[in-house]
């Protein structure tokens, strides 16, 4: 096997817990979605229900904190709840923001590929508006003044066969990941022997070769 591998020995014990018994809270799921979204080069499936549940929890907690404040509860307790709330909100916002950053960067590509279906309804709306504005702006400020043949927002010139001015996510990259369950033998590269992917090890994989496992939730990115 032509991969350089290092390390032996057992994990610290934290991840020896059988994943089926370990309960997972929404926060943990959201953290996972956040990490994956940050580490993946392309936009991933929007976690609709999870975001829904998380924002409900935030709302509930906001009401609790307000109640506490009105009832003159112990200020320390209130501030602890407030901190808990802040952490949850940070996670939720950061998750939504990282998606928006990707949408702004790759909006044209996303709208023309299957990635469109991974956006939430609001994100699709945002993306459309953003594209319209961008197109309008570029047309008004630059493109309309260029000579004929160079006025497309998608192409460098009329002679380009494909849309070569559309930024695309760079999928040809490598990501750190951990599998939650052993994945069995995977064909990593052409002409290489399949390799056993075990749980608990940290791997650096070509993104394309584990993309489907990230989507199915078997693999977490780091």
């Amino acid at each position, binding site marked *: 096997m032509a991969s350089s591998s290092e*390390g032996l020995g057992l994990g610290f014990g934290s991840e020896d817990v059988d994943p089926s018994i370990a309960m997972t809270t929404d926060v943990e799921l959201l953290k996972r979605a956040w990490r994956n979204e940050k580490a993946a080069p392309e936009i991933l499936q929007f976690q609709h229900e999870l975001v829904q549940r998380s924002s409900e929890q935030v709302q509930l907690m906001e009401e609790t904190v307000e109640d506490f404040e009105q009832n003159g509860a112990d200020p320390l307790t209130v501030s602890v709840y407030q901190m808990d709330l802040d952490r949850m909100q940070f996670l939720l916002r950061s998750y939504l923001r990282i998606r928006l950053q990707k949408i702004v960067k790759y909006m044209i590509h996303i709208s023309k590929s299957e990635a469109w279906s991974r956006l939430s309804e609001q994100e699709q709306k945002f993306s459309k508006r953003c594209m319209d504005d961008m197109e309008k702006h570029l047309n008004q400020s630059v493109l309309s003044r260029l000579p004929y043949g160079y006025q497309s927002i998608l192409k460098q010139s009329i002679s380009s066969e494909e849309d070569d001015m559309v930024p695309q996510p760079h999928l040809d990259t490598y990501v750190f990941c951990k599998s939650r369950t052993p994945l069995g033998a995977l064909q990593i590269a052409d002409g290489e022997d399949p390799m056993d992917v075990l749980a608990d090890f940290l791997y650096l994989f070509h993104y394309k070769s584990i993309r489907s496992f990230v989507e199915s939730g078997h693999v977490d990115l780091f």
Partner: protein
Amino acid sequence: MAGQSDPSLSMFSAAEVEFLAEDEMVEIVPNLNMDTLNLICVNFIFFGYFLSLSQGDFGPFRPQMATSVPLWLAVALKKRGKCTIRCPQWMSVEKLTQVLEAERDSPAQFQPLPFHYVEISRLLFDNARDDIPDMYMARSLIEDIRDVRFHKFESGLEKISSSTHVVKLKNLSAMEVNIVRPFFVRALQAFAKHDSPQMIHHQQDAMSSRQAHPQDDGPRRDLRRR
């Protein structure tokens, strides 16, 4: 928002990695009375011995009764002088000395340490210095451990070659992953790029037809040579 990192530079900022570490559990001894807290932010990847916690409930807090809480809560209470933090076992001078020795003895392996050992120890050194026995000794041991481990990835990087498609690592910690990520990723990308026959072909094509290709980081066009 503070702490939001630019995805194109590095994926996680140090503050974001620390944010994740703050959900790890530590044991505290409170010196106040406080009722059970029911929190949303509960991490359920636990170290084996914290398995028995019920979901989201911490406390009740009674003076001198040890209890387990997430690190962020421990630090918040500590800052207000409401508890002492029990130094985790792996952070004792004795344990750290063992780890450092083992780390030096096995040049190809990383010793098992908590996934967030860098951040946890840093937070405790900054916020709970009086609760850690031999603080200065422990701190310098952890620094030495980090250095030895860092040296190992550097030599690991030298092993990457054009035939490397996967790198497999064990016991690497979160902060370490974050630090080595750009080096490993770029090294592998560079090898893949210079190695692939299509790329060589592709460049010849590009040279002959002067056609630029879509790039990942925004519309950009090769400038014509003067």
